[in-house]
């Protein structure tokens, strides 16, 4: 009767095993530093242009929307603090992670999926290399290092977007905007804003690797794995965001 649950439960079990094995292997040699640096370049530097654009325009939109509501109460000067808190706590981590999921979970799944269907993963194993060490670990480390950095950059660029609206349309002074934004942020906000992308980085890289390594059925299978990786990682990002936010709000 519950046969339909077998497949998803098995997938979750395999995902947990893969993640546990990768984390357990983090300190184990060999460390493929060249692959780690290459992945940091692909994931971090490669995602930078789109993260800059998304961050900047998010800041603009947020400042415009907030200023409208704040005008009602004559509190336009609070635009800086509100943009800062919203960006650092929520929008920065989530938007950057969604962009990274679309770009990197897809990239990882399609690359590993292609390697799987062309027997390159089997060849790697036959040639004495553990695919988890060579393929999964570098992607996990690179994403965990680069995503918080990208988020910090997106936050700053978003604040610049808000500042652009503040001085050009809302008649705020630079001091008013930046002092308000700086004072509004507490250590707790920054911690939350960096912890979230770190956790989402684990999700994005592991989901990409999981679907890539489990690809079956040729090029069609690669396409399916790529789609599944993007959809799953985005759903997980939003679900985890709700849980983490609840935890931070409670304490």
């Amino acid at each position, binding site marked *: 009767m519950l046969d339909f649950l077998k497949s998803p439960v098995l997938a979750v079990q395999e995902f947990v095993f893969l993640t546990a094995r990768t984390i357990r292997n983090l300190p184990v040699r060999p460390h493929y530093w060249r692959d780690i640096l290459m992945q940091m370049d692909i994931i971090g530097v490669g995602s930078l242009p789109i993260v800059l654009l998304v961050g900047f325009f998010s800041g603009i939109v947020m400042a415009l929307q907030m200023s409208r509501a704040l005008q009602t109460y004559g509190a336009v000067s609070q635009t800086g603090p509100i943009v800062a808190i919203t960006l650092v706590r929520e929008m920065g981590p989530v938007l950057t992670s969604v962009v990274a999921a679309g770009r990197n979970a897809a990239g990882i799944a399609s690359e590993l999926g*292609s*390697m799987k269907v*062309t*027997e*390159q993963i*089997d*060849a*790697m*194993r*036959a*040639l*004495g*290399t*553990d695919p988890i060490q060579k393929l999964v670990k570098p992607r996990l480390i690179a994403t965990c290092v680069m995503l918080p950095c990208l988020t910090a950059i997106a936050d700053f660029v978003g604040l610049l977007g808000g500042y652009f609206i503040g001085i050009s349309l809302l008649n705020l002074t630079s001091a008013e905007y930046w002092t308000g934004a700086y004072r509004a942020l507490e250590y707790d906000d920054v911690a939350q804003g960096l912890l979230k992308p770190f956790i989402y980085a684990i999700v994005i890289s592991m989901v990409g690797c999981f679907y890539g390594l489990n690809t079956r059925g040729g090029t069609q299978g690669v396409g399916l794995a790529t789609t599944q990786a993007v959809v799953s990682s985005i759903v997980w990002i939003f679900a985890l965001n709700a849980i983490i936010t609840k935890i931070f709000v409670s304490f």
Partner: protein
Amino acid sequence: MPNTDSILRFEKVTVAFGGDPAIEDVSFEIRAGESRVILGAAGSGKTVILKTSVGLLRPDSGRVFLFGQDITEMKEQDQFDLRARVGMLFQESALFDSLNIEENVAYPLLNQKAVNCPEDQVHARVEEALTFVELGHTLEKFPSELSGGMRRRVGIARANVTEPAMVIYDSPTAGLDPITANNIMALIVKERDVRHATTVMVTQRFQDGAIMARYKYDRATETLVAATPGDASIAGLKFLVMKQGRLVFEGTLAEMEQSKDPYISKFVLRN
């Protein structure tokens, strides 16, 4: 107990996918210096045998011994040193797309701990292996820049660069034109006779096996010449025939050609 000179031994091995056996109750043994040609129709379990031989697939029942060691339940990491003694050519070559030809062939030298090749010797050994397959000029190229036959030859170079004790070829001529296929077979015979490695080849083409059984490499003329019945090159060569996951025949070329079994004789005649 397996023999000390046993290279590969299957004992009643069954491998199943989703409950359907891909190979069932398969037993055979290959000793040092011997060769096997595994024939069978598509889906008969030939590739599964090869992958199970080096631990890429785990048996559902039965036992697999590689170089005398039981690898049936051995951890993957513990198998790496054993795998370093096996060279493998995959069906579609399985060259790494992101690496150039030199890096592809150097991969086993640099990544197999048991090979222990000093870094300053890697380039020379790669060049030597590629020159052996007449592709010494392709070091800087990427796999996508080579033809199917050339990729297969690079795969042969990668499988042999560490001079392994056993070399496994999975359908080395599949999808190639007859001239290229014959060139590939000539290289396989050359590798076998120059290095005296145990050779296992999976193929659908009987004539590939017949080349291995009838010819030897002559160093003086650097060509293949007809082998005589007493030649060491072909003395230990046997054919295994797979049918729907079961091993239905094991014997010499002559025994295979004389077989009255409809499946085997049809196989021989068709080719």
